[in-house]
């Protein structure tokens, strides 16, 4: 009886986590480079009421036994790194990665972070920075008097100065990839950090043979959240929550009836 109550409560808790995750996905439906997360669940331990193989009588044994489960728990919400749609912005400092890989961002505390959001800006000193002002790594500086900036598919950044027909190279953007990107830690502000689960980054030039994607200038990668999918998940989650609350009610009713046996 108490088992049923707690199993149902664990189900309600899990659906609440599910809904919180869905809410965050929907809230970030317009966040550049955002990757949706999907909650995953596991069943909990089982209580063996009757051991399989136990003697049912002198001649026979119980073939499978009786196992009563104790509910569910949210085990992870993994990031879905599927490519988002590209939208054209015509901004020369907007870049998308077509395929695998992350831009490397040097945070203010000196640690490297990784992002899919390729919306860069120029700092006061002409360096490429992300929306929060963190430097792109390796640093690339564009002179203030440059009239055009080009980012090639392989990450080479070049600019032209007034009166000089030949373009000059400012550097090359490097991408990082991980053995297990789903193991990255979300830091907020579109940034991810390396963990033991993600493995060490493999850094290389865009479009190189390491499976790194190539760059495309003048586009931004949209969030890969599918609103329709999230709404469907929300309905399923809500109904599952409801079903579990019904179990709580049923267990409560039955408990009450058992108590009423003694009048």
């Amino acid at each position, binding site marked *: 009886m108490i088992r049923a109550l707690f199993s149902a409560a664990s189900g309600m808790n*899990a659906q609440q986590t599910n809904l919180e995750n869905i809410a965050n996905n929907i809230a970030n439906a317009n966040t550049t480079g955002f990757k949706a997360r999907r909650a995953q669940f596991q069943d909990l331990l089982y209580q063996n009421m009757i051991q*399989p193989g136990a003697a049912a009588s002198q001649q026979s044994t119980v073939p499978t036994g009786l196992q009563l*489960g104790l509910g569910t728990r949210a085990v992870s919400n993994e990031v879905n790194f599927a490519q988002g749609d590209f939208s054209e912005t015509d901004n020369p400092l907007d870049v998308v990665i077509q395929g695998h890989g992350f831009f490397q961002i040097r945070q203010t505390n000196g640690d490297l972070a990784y992002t899919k959001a390729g919306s860069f800006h120029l700092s006061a000193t002409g360096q490429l920075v992300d929306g929060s002002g963190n430097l792109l790594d390796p640093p690339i500086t564009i002179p203030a008097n440059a009239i055009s900036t080009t980012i090639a598919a392989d990450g080479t950044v070049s600019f032209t100065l007034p009166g000089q027909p030949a373009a000059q190279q400012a550097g090359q953007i490097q991408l990082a990839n991980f*053995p297990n990107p789903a193991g990255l830690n979300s830091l907020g502000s579109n940034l991810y950090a390396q963990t033991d*689960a993600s493995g060490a980054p493999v850094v290389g030039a865009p479009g190189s043979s390491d499976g790194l994607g190539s760059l495309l200038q003048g586009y931004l990668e949209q969030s890969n959240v599918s609103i329709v999918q999230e709404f469907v998940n929300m309905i399923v*989650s809500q109904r*599952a929550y409801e079903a579990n609350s019904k179990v709580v009610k049923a*267990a409560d009713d039955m408990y009450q009836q058992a108590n009423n046996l003694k009048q």
Partner: protein
Amino acid sequence: MDQISLIAASGMRANLQSLDLLANNMANTSTNGYKGDSEFHTVFVSEAADESDVEPTTLPMIERHWTDFSQGTLEPTSNPLDFGLTGKGFFAVQGPSGTLYTRNGSFQMSSSGTLNTRDGYPLLDQNGQPLKLLKPGAPVVVSPDGTVQQDGQPVGKLQFVDFKEPGALLKHGGNYFENSTGAKPVTPDSATVAQGKVETSNVNAAHGAVRLVNVMRQFEVMQKAISIANEMGREAIEQVAKIS
């Protein structure tokens, strides 16, 4: 205790266990690869049944559970490391104390190049060894028969196992089953893998709700039976033994 109360109380206990099973099913409607449990009702017959002149005691009880191994719905996730299994069989993974079996085909690449479950248990290939990727981080392609490729190079073939009597599998928790009876695994002939999909729980919430009503009503009936038996006992004591 009189016979009626005894039988009804045993029935109530069985109903409580039914509710426990049902509650666990309902809690796991969002657990990938979860297989629903049902109870198997039986009647306990006392040993006295062997002696022909004694009225045997029979009690309703739940002897065992059985797991419904029917296929869950495949849901597209667009994650290339989600493998949805159709047909019979299980993925084999290397647990901390022996091989575990699962239908939850949601894996992660480890930095050492194996494909791991959420708990870090590596997925096994058809030789029973952890499947080693050629290049950790590079895209993985799995064909329906379980052959794994990276950059067009063959990596290995996934192991699918089934059991002649899947009822011999014990639930381990964490979406795993363990082979409790030492039954010999067989290779299923109908298992295929769909990449980028996961198999959702096969628990039907509507069906669960109907069973819930059923369990509640049965419990209520037994409770009434006990009340009536009590009433009869009271009447017997108060009325029959009354000296007027």
